[in-house]
């Protein structure tokens, strides 16, 4: 592509990047301002001087390490469980022959269309009756099986030649070995993107942990960040923003770590 033809594309890409980056940059800048400064000139691009008071306040107010540990553990457990369950489910739907296979795939697709609003009341009641409120189980178990994950794995497996599976079987590999040791490494880009999507969604989730926790035992960081905001007597924005910067750091680190795989997954599918 010539330079002249690439220019509009480049400008568009820059505009899209700015649309994502500017709010984040604003959040970071606001977190190192003082409240009177924010109130007087909220859109000023730079602070008068760097003030780390908001970060000191965040770490003094919240047990950040504990909340973050719980949140990361929960998000990793959910993403890990989803991958572990989506692999055999997707394999069955893509490669095995059984009665009702099309119907089963239809059920998976239907699950994608069911909003969580329709299911969380019975799930909550179930967990309340089984005394699982305020446990890690209540945070992880409802999300362990993922329709989206099953769908993605099934679609990715359709492009894997059946001969590979036949060869593994002839070598005496069990079905579990085929799924987890032969096919899983081949689906790495898909699994990495599934892990990321799941991790980010559940790491940021406020609603479900709020519903499922009534004490501090397994409180997550997004609930902790909500402690920094007091609406009834006035919001101290620099502290709220500092909390959100801290909250976002693990996700940024994770993206930096697996960016290569993610790009490969997207480009492979494109």
């Amino acid at each position, binding site marked *: 592509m010539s330079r002249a033809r690439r220019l509009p594309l480049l400008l568009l890409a820059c505009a899209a990047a700015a649309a994502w980056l500017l709010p984040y940059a604003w959040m970071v800048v606001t977190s190192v301002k003082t*409240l*009177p400064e924010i*109130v*007087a000139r*909220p859109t000023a691009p730079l602070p008068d001087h760097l003030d780390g008071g908001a970060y000191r306040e965040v770490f003094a*107010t919240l047990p950040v390490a504990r909340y973050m540990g719980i949140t990361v553990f929960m998000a990793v457990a959910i993403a890990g469980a989803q991958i572990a369950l989506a692999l055999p489910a997707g394999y069955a739907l893509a490669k095995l022959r059984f009665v009702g296979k099309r119907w089963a795939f239809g059920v998976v697709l239907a699950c994608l269309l069911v909003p969580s*609003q329709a299911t*969380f*009341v019975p799930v*909550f*009641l179930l967990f*309340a*009756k089984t005394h699982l*409120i305020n446990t890690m189980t209540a945070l992880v178990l409802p999300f362990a099986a993922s329709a989206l994950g099953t769908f993605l794995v099934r679609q990715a497996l359709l492009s894997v030649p059946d001969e590979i599976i036949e060869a593994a079987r002839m070598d005496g590999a069990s079905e579990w070995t085929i799924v987890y040791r032969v096919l899983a490494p081949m689906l790495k880009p898909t699994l990495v993107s599934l892990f990321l999507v799941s991790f980010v969604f559940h790491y940021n989730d*406020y*609603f479900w942990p*709020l*519903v499922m926790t*009534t*004490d*501090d035992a397994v409180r997550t960081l997004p*609930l902790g960040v*909500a*402690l*920094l*905001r*007091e*609406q*009834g*007597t*006035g*919001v*101290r924005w620099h*502290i709220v923003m500092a909390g959100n910067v801290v909250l976002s750091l693990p996700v940024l680190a994770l993206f930096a770590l697996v960016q290569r795989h993610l790009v490969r997954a997207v480009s492979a599918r494109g």
Partner: protein
Amino acid sequence: MLARRALLRALAASVAAAALGCGRRERPVRRDGRVVVTFWYAYGDLVRKVLLELVARFNASQSRVLVEAVHQGDYFECLAKLRTAIAAGAAPTLSHVVCEVVPYLARARVLEALDGYDGAGEIPFVPALSQQGAFRGAEREPTFCIPFNRSTPIAFASGRLLDEARVAPPRTWDELLDAARRLTRRGEGGEVRWGFEVPISWWYWVAMVGQAGGALVAPDGALTLGGEAGERALRFWQRLVRDERVMRPPPGRDYQAWQSSNESFLQGRIAMMWSSTAFVRYLEDNARFPVVAAPLPRDVRASVPTGGTMFVLLRGAPDEEKRAAWEFVRWMCDDEQTIAWSTRTGYLPVTRPAVDKLDARGWYAAHPNDRVAYDQLASVDPWPWVPELFRVERDVVEPRLEDAVLTGRDAHAILDEARAEAARPA
């Protein structure tokens, strides 16, 4: 935020409809020989810090009771969780709820009547802030709630802008309109400094209904929503926003709109606003101009509703826990705790001896805006003791106010619609 609240409300409604009031724990929770009181609260940041300090002080002051305060989101999230937990048998011993929902919870028989508790009738509350003063018709009811963080609407103005325009804080609706006209400035670049701003929300509309001489409920119990006065209040808003263009309706709903008004006010983009007395510290601490508080202006009379929350004990908790929770509530109403809570958060002091002590210590002389807030309690219009009140607020009136003001729809038609929906069983 709204979607999250909607989900929580759906959860609460679904569960509560099935089993409200069913859950009851038999045995009290104990730790190290002390009765544990679980206290669900809905504050963040500084208010939370003050509360937790008071809780720690209470826990250190005696060895019988251990209060464990747990954050449960904002007021409405906390309420939704409370209703859900009551039905699921996992309710705390103590919580605090917005004033308007108390009659509903009382009718659902989930609140503990407090009259039999030690010293319950002897706490010298500021009359307008107690259950008996905050509700009309509550004198026939047992005491179900104890005032905690209480507030009223109030007018704030920039002293600098008032001086520049030689305008006094308005005392009537006519004066408000005139002052807003004189304080509104339109720049050549299209920027506007608005004379007046108030969130288009239930609380302020109720204040205006009272000021226009109306009441939400007729003496026969019919939900009239102020009748002609309710419509007059809406028309006055429509006039300020649409005809005179001297008021900006702040963007956002609930507290987002309130916060937006605060920020515009602090940036000098609005000259006068109505807000909550609870914001007085925040505004004074962050304004680069003198903040002038004034009572809300009257139409045919002065009137303000009360707001904030009340302590409630949950009936399903074991008796020993409820007695322990009462000990904490009683302690919170002592002068020193009341004073600490009020002066550090901006909420109104809830007992008369605390007010007297604040006066004697020179607090009101040093903080005249706090005095204005307290004096305005003489104009409090009590809420009707109607179980439907909270539903009417959240589901019937609040969603229609913005529509009425922004689109200019006929106030009579909108309130007729609201009255019909309010009369329908939930």
